[in-house]
């Protein structure tokens, strides 16, 4: 969901230069007519985007924060300020923590699988071989399908009595109704949907690694697995970092897959219900927007902490040229 910029570092350097330029401009005080014209063009060009962002995104941020301190009136009308009450209710609400834990479990189970499978596929595909373009097309297929449709198909594949999976394995596994394995079913669909996309990203990263690195390494007598861990992984680490970071965010914001695959009346539902679904439920089904807003603020706090930790540890294992 969140587009991210892997090259955050170049930015900072760039904005420093811009700041210097601006200081110079300020020293001159008066703008030349040409500079004035340029500034007017600049403002006209950014106006739609900036005004749109202020109305559609910045006002909502403030409004959500405000609502998280309010009690929503009956039938979802009106707000009454109640201070921290929503947050106090939240930290005593076991459902918030169980759904958050479900989202985390989904991330912990799906991310290593997705990353390792797509990495292997990318390495295998990174060579001249027959059918390369076809494989790329096929593995990428789930990316262009609505998750709602994918979820419906998998729900049918998982069907206990007539589903394809139980047919193939000749088993009677209750994939989506057994509380202990329901989450695994969701993870299977999540991994299946994501590997094509991550594989393409990693393939792009692999193609940027100069071939002479491997040649030099093989002269030094290192190849195969050794070269993979000494050359491929370090040079791929910025891309891996990007995939892991966006993967964690995506997992914590998971909504459509569990919602479409599972029956909300099933006994397994509490084991796969995600925190984003809990937010949706309070904000739009129970018309308790105040509490919904508090839940989303809580989730954003968690995501910020994780992002912060990731950024801090980034330098330890991510190699930039």
């Amino acid at each position: 969901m969140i587009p991210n910029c892997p090259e955050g570092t170049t930015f900072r350097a760039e904005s420093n230069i811009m700041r210097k330029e601006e200081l110079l401009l300020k020293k001159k005080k008066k703008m030349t007519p040409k500079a004035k014209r340029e500034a007017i063009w600049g403002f006209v060009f950014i106006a739609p985007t900036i005004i749109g962002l202020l109305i559609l995104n910045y006002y909502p941020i403030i409004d959500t924060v405000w609502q998280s301190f309010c009690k929503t009136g009956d039938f979802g009308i009106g707000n009454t300020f109640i201070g921290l009450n929503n947050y106090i209710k939240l930290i005593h609400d076991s459902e918030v923590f169980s759904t958050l834990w479900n989202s985390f479990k989904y991330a912990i189970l799906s991310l290593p699988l997705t990353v390792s499978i797509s990495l292997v596929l990318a390495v295998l595909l990174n060579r001249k071989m027959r059918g390369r373009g076809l494989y790329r097309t096929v593995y990428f297929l789930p990316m262009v399908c609505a998750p709602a449709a994918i979820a419906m198909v998998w729900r049918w594949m998982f069907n206990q009595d007539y589903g394809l999976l139980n047919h193939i394995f000749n088993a009677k596994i209750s994939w989506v109704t057994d509380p202990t394995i329901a989450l695994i079913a969701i993870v299977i669909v999540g991994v299946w949907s994501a590997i094509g996309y991550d594989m393409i990203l990693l393939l792009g990263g692999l193609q940027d690694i100069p071939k002479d690195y491997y040649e030099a390494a093989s002269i030094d007598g290192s190849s195969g697995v050794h070269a993979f861990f000494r050359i491929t992984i370090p040079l791929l680490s910025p891309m891996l970092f990007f995939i892991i970071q966006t993967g964690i965010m995506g997992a914590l914001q998971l909504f459509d897959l569990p919602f479409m695959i599972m029956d909300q009346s099933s006994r397994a539902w509490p084991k796969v219900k995600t925190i984003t679904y809990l937010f949706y439920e309070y904000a739009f089904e129970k018309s308790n927007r105040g509490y919904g807003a508090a839940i989303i603020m809580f989730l954003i706090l968690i995501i910020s902490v994780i992002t912060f930790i990731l950024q801090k540890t980034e330098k330890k294992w991510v190699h930039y040229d």
Partner: protein
Amino acid sequence: MGWKAKKNLTAVVIQCIMIIGAVIMITPFIWMLLTAVKTKSESISVNPFYIFPGGSWHFENFVQVWNSYNFLILYKNTLLMIALRVLCACLTATLAGYAFARLKFPGKNFFFAIVLVQMMVPGQIYIIPQYLMVSKLHIMNTQFALLLPGAVTAFGTYLCKQGYQSLPASLEEAAELDGCNIGQRFLHVMMPLTRSSLVSLGIFTALFAYKDLMWPMIVCPKSDATTLTAALSRLQGQFGNNYPQLMAGAVMAVIPMLVLYLIFQKQFVEGIATSGGKL
């Protein structure tokens, strides 16, 4: 074993792995198609690998789902939403991206920070107030409601800015010497050269809009105002365990994008991969 034989063996093993993977990727799609042309009793009684269970395919499921859900309107809604969002996003983003990359104006860093911060905040924080806006403006169940969150794009602005930055400055200087003003330089010289970032942004926006479930479910609950994706969630409620009909609905929902993808594969794959956007 000689070097060449070993190399051949490796190639065979890799091909096997890739084929197994491809079969796993494609099986759900085939299963979806095969189920959609069965009757309900066939779908729960016959061995799933029979391709012609009752001697022939049944296309009634498509007709029934089409009629009871008015897919024509769903297609129209979805297409219009995608077209409007792509148009708005590309237009506003390419303008702003050009200004941020190429023009000098006071407060540029501050305004760019506004763009960057929006990219970092998880999307759900906007939903409640955006929904309240839609309901106060009385545009629930309309195209405007579907368009609203996608009208401008911080991510697209960033993407376009990078596109403009990669162009050499000499191009613009030449145009300036020829007497072009900034608007002409943008329109005739620079924008056409960033076509690839615009294509990326367009594909990304289209896919994002097409796949989104929560927003259309909230602002367009009426079945004749909603999108394909959101209609699927209702379909499940209505047809329950009639999987052939559900699959027929799913096929009709995924086919348009699938066909587009198969035609414009290269642009899709590269556009999404190079934009670095997470769907």
